[in-house]
């Protein structure tokens, strides 16, 4: 065999293994997409029948077997907004502190380990803690404010981490360029670093909203009501929420079989809300990525 032919063999082997590897990767990633579509399709097919104007705008009736889920939709929106108002500023500012200000390596490491531990805490433990602190110790009772704080605590680690990573990805040359022009550190962060990091920070916020709107355990003991015919009147009222409603009518309703349709409808609404928030945030992200204060 001449050397050239020998090389030809190696080439063929290389190309084959390349094809096999790429084929496997492609197949696996398509499988993930397929699973997502199967779940979505299942929920849509089962849930679409339940969806009507009445379903979206009225309260449940006859032991959850008929009527709508309006109070639960409103409750979930309140909880998302309430917890975001608490967690976004705290989380983003902590992330900024960690990446831009903190200089002591030991302190940073300690805070980072603690944040990671916090994100590993099961959500039901957050629920118990929220009940002990906000509901009982602070005397807020089962309320939107107690639920919002509990959900905010749960989503903080994620927001801090993604903010930190977003800031870390901004090259120091931009900071130096700004500082060299006599800008202060705060001006540099506000005018150069944050606008650049914003698209990636938003990604973290989206993920946190998705998690907050879908969690059941943290709101179980802090805010969620089994059934409320009317809407909450203040932040110290209880409210219904979509994931808890779903849990309730699937496990402990008066007639579980009869409320199956409602359950799928509720799941569909929950997914739709998360999807809409995602799309909105994505649009916002693209807007900032392209027109970040030209």
């Amino acid at each position, binding site marked *: 065999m001449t050397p050239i032919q020998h090389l030809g063999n190696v080439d063929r082997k290389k190309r084959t293994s390349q094809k096999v590897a790429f084929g496997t990767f492609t197949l696996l990633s398509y499988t993930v997409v397929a699973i997502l579509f199967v779940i979505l399709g299942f929920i849509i097919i089962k849930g679409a029948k339940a969806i009507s104007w009445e379903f979206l705008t009225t309260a449940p009736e006859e032991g959850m077997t008929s009527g709508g889920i309006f109070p639960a939709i409103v409750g979930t929106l309140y909880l998302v907004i309430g917890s975001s108002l608490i967690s976004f500023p705290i989380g983003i500012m902590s992330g900024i502190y960690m990446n831009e200000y903190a200089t002591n390596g030991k302190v940073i490491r300690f805070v980072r380990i603690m944040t990671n531990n916090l994100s590993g805490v099961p959500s039901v433990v957050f629920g118990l803690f929220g009940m002990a602190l906000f509901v009982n110790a602070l005397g807020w009772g089962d309320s939107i404010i107690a639920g919002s704080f509990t959900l905010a605590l749960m989503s903080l680690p994620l927001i801090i981490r993604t903010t930190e990573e977003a800031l870390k990805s901004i090259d120091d*040359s931009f900071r*130096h360029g700004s500082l060299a022009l*006599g800008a*202060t550190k705060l001006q540099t962060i506000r*005018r150069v670093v944050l606008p650049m990091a914003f698209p990636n920070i938003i990604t973290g916020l989206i993920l946190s909203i998705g998690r907050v709107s879908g969690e059941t355990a943290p709101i179980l003991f802090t805010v969620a009501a089994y059934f409320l015919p009317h809407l909450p009147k203040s932040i110290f009222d209880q409210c219904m929420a979509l994931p808890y409603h779903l849990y309730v009518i699937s496990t402990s309703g008066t007639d579980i079989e009869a409320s199956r349709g409602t359950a799928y409808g509720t799941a569909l609404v929950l997914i739709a809300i998360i999807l809409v928030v995602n799309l909105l945030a994505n649009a916002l992200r693209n807007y900032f990525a392209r027109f970040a204060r030209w």
Partner: protein
Amino acid sequence: MIKIDTQSVDFYYGDFHALKNISMQIEANTSVAFIGPSGCGKSTYLRLFNRMNDLIPGTRLTGSICIDGRNIYDKGEKVDQLRKNVGMVFQKPNPFPKSIYENVAYGLRVNGVKDESYIEETVVKTIKQVALWDEVKEKLRESAFALSGGQQQRLCIARALAISPSILLMDEPTSALDPISTGKIEDLIHELKMQYTIVIVTHNMQQAARVSDKTGYFYLGELIEYDNTRKIFTNPEKESTQNYITGRFG
């Protein structure tokens, strides 16, 4: 007139003794080049003039550096005020992800200038000053990232000049650029030294010879020789300088 007066400066990164007993006077409205092999301390020394080394934790300086007679390392000195007076251009062009206009306006805005007509006037003036006007006048509101590397670097020079510094530091400003862009920046340096004191770090010895009035040769953290550029390149006092400029090492 002495613009920058360095008296027996020693500088440390942690335990590493990066600059050893440097003393040097730089006169106003001249251009000075720092040359020397990588790691010799020339960039470190340059960054002392606008205190950019302050950003690195664990550094220490002894001795004094006076600009216009004031020791910039005195306790009460304001770093942002200093950096307004001592502009800097970096090795890699680093425009902000903003429009061409806002890049040049940035220094004015962060230093509290609100008068939009003054800002616009200054932006146009400085972009013309760096000979970039004809290339960008149609697209001042477009992203600075759309410019070529050479144009970006001239924009960064304009950005530094917009806040009217009296000193301009340049840290290997052409090492990432093609020869034509390099030529344009060198021409610019010739014009700028009428109004500014320019200190340039370069690896390119022809460049040092072309643009500077005086040259300092650094080796292993020491200032080996500092003299008129012509003297350094034709008849240096020290053998080490001779070896470096003739390309025997470095």
